[in-house]
């Protein structure tokens, strides 16, 4: 059973809908016991980084998440803010993150007059780690829906799954062992996203 961690931010219904559509089963929960029993986790999130960390801490979720992810090595997929929370630190609110992947979350500072922040819309992505099972069966030209004002900078290239461009190239997918994060919204990205979610269910 996949558990979508409800820490009070984000569009959980659409992720649950999409998991169902690709043949999986997911529950939305903030209950420690349910999260403790999960065989796979999704960390969603739309909103501010500091608010996200504050909620995780206030709801007492941090230690169970640490145990599940770092000790039990249960797969976790962070989406959008959920990916950024995997990093050490964010400029948004100047706070620490979960710190599971050696990276930081920085604000877009663009010189362009045309491109805006938030980065909102569809973008083609380049896959750095083609052999990763999450990308099974995907074509070469794939696009995803993004909505974000901050982006993730990894210390090491080996944690970068895929990249996209918004004036600068940035990591839009990150990975470390059982931990995966996507900046874009697979649950709102047509067949491109459905394939990723199906791969997460089947192969990760």
């Amino acid at each position, binding site marked *: 059973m996949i558990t979508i961690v409800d820490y009070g931010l984000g569009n959980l219904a659409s992720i649950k809908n999409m998991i169902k559509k690709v043949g999986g089963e997911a529950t939305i929960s903030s209950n420690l016991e349910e999260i403790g029993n999960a065989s796979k986790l999704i960390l969603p999130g739309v909103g501010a980084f500091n608010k996200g960390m504050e909620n995780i801490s206030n709801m007492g979720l941090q230690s169970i998440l640490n145990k599940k992810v770092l000790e039990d090595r249960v797969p976790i997929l962070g989406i959008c803010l959920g990916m950024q929370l995997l990093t050490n630190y964010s400029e948004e609110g100047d706070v620490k993150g979960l710190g599971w992947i050696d990276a930081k979350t920085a604000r877009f500072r663009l010189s362009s007059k045309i491109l*805006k922040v938030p980065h*909102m819309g569809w973008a083609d992505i380049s896959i750095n780690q083609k052999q990763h099972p999450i990308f099974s069966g995907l074509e070469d030209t794939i696009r995803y*829906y993004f*909505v974000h004002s901050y982006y993730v900078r990894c210390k090491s290239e080996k944690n970068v799954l895929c990249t996209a461009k918004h004036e600068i190239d940035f990591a839009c997918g990150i990975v470390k062992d059982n931990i995966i994060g996507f900046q874009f919204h697979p649950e*709102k990205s047509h067949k491109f996203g*459905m394939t990723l979610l199906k791969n997460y269910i089947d192969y990760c």
Partner: protein
Amino acid sequence: MRRVRIIPVLTVDGSKLVKTVKFKKPNYLGDPINAIKIFNDKEVDEVVVLDITASKNNKDINFQLVEEMAGECFMPLAYGGGVKTFDHIQKLFSIGVEKVILNSVLETNIDLITKVANHYGAQSTVVALDIKKNIWGTPKVHFRSGKKSSNIKPIDFAQKVESAGAGEILINNIDRDGTFKGLDMELINSIATSVNIPVIACGGAHSIENIKDGIVCGGASAVAAGSLFAYKANNTASILINYPSQEELHKEVFKHLS
């Protein structure tokens, strides 16, 4: 290559899909859920749903329909129409809407923008700027599905909602709605250059080329259209839910962008 969003707008009246001309004369098009399914197949960028009677008639939001639409939608869904309270907003997000569009409520309560943006993020907080020219040809902001005029200048209002925390502005040009007269580039440009947040231009688009011009000449970040994607060959007697293919979009739009 840069992509821009090209967004079909579905206007609903109760549970019916309709299309207006200048915010009037709703023409019955069919079932909104069916339209969403067609747009899924066509892999559209995003969908905007506007309930055009909810605010005007002080009705409640048809949450059941919105939930059904959001459940079918493989792309982001923005909803507007009758959104008056924070409770409405919480409910909309909980049933799977990505963005809420505020309009009539801002006549009296601009602080709602800040509250929504703080809670759900600016990117989920869209303001619809319904604009109509007065008898002297000066564009003014309207509320309540265009029924309520004001003396507010679009640029002033755009800047005000940006500082209140809105993440995006949807320009809805009432004079051009359903007319196929083309986007009003001057109006779009005046607003797009006065704010830093993305501006979606809507009202009057008659072709993909016109949409491209809305981006390149108008300076919009995205273009939305209702009639263009609801009728075959801009003929209002011939209903056909349509959307350009990726090949067309590349050829007609994306490759012209800097």
